């Protein structure tokens, strides 16, 4: 199964989508030109960073992860521009725009939470490596769980309840991670072995 954001050339498609949405937004709301210009600049920066880092000497997995991250960043940008387009078309009071934004936000939390344990951090000792991985694993599970819970809320619950579900789960996850971070013995310094 090849994920959508893992295919070659998909970043070009996402870039085209972002540019098209920004241009349409610009035509409909020329008074917010700076916002559209900022979105276009962000997309250009994502493309630049992706091309620079994927050319550097890295493993295939790292290059793939960087490309995925860039594509995901582009998708988030496109979702924001699509919501702005809905508003520009007069759907700003509709539940659809708010729900769409909630879905995107929860999806971001879910995807980021999923990737947190995979982050590589240089450590001097095995104890540090293990402590750090345990912490990242816990944070990943918490954020991915909060994202999944919030996402199901935005998909199936009424908007008012979905807001409460998503907010409570998100802040609950942050609070639990902070508590674990403070209480964790791995935060204390460890001598190299």
């Amino acid at each position, binding site marked *: *199964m090849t994920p959508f954001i893992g295919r070659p050339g998909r970043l070009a498609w996402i870039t085209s989508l972002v540019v098209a949405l920004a241009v349409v937004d610009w035509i409909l709301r020329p008074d917010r030109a700076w916002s559209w210009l900022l979105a276009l600049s962000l997309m250009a920066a994502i493309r630049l960073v992706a091309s620079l880092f994927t050319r550097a000497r890295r493993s295939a997995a790292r290059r793939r992860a960087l490309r995925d991250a860039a594509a995901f960043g582009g998708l988030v940008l496109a979702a924001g521009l699509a919501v702005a387009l809905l508003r520009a078309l007069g759907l700003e009071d509709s539940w659809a725009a708010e729900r769409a934004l909630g879905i995107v936000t929860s999806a971001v939390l879910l995807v980021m939470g999923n990737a947190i*344990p*995979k982050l590589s951090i240089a450590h001097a000792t095995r104890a540090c*490596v*293990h402590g750090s991985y345990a912490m990242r*694993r816990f944070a*990943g599970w918490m954020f991915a769980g909060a994202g999944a819970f919030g996402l199901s809320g935005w998909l199936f619950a009424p908007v008012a309840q979905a807001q409460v579900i998503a907010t409570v789960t998100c802040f609950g996850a942050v609070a639990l991670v902070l508590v674990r971070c403070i209480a964790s013995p791995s935060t204390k310094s460890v001598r190299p072995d």
Partner: protein
Amino acid sequence: MNKVFKALADPTRRRVLELLRQGPMSAGELSDQFAFAKPTMSAHFAVLKEADLVEARKDGKQVIYQLRLSVLEDALLGFSKVFGIGDGVRRSTARPHRQESRS
């Protein structure tokens, strides 16, 4: 994702991942937990590395392996353990500790 499924389908590789849950281990320390020859274990480590489930780093002459599981991969590992995928194939080959030395 195919590589992840392939890596998790083997009970030996799942056992390696479970051992690494306790902390980073050297290739030798991991190999000592199994009755396989070193080349066989190296092949298992290669599959795990290819799937990006573990990270290897050199520490002097040793190669230290550490876990690199995403939340989804962690959940898949749990599911494959619960449902015992591929357990009937090689159950007899893994043992907790190697007692005898190779002749």
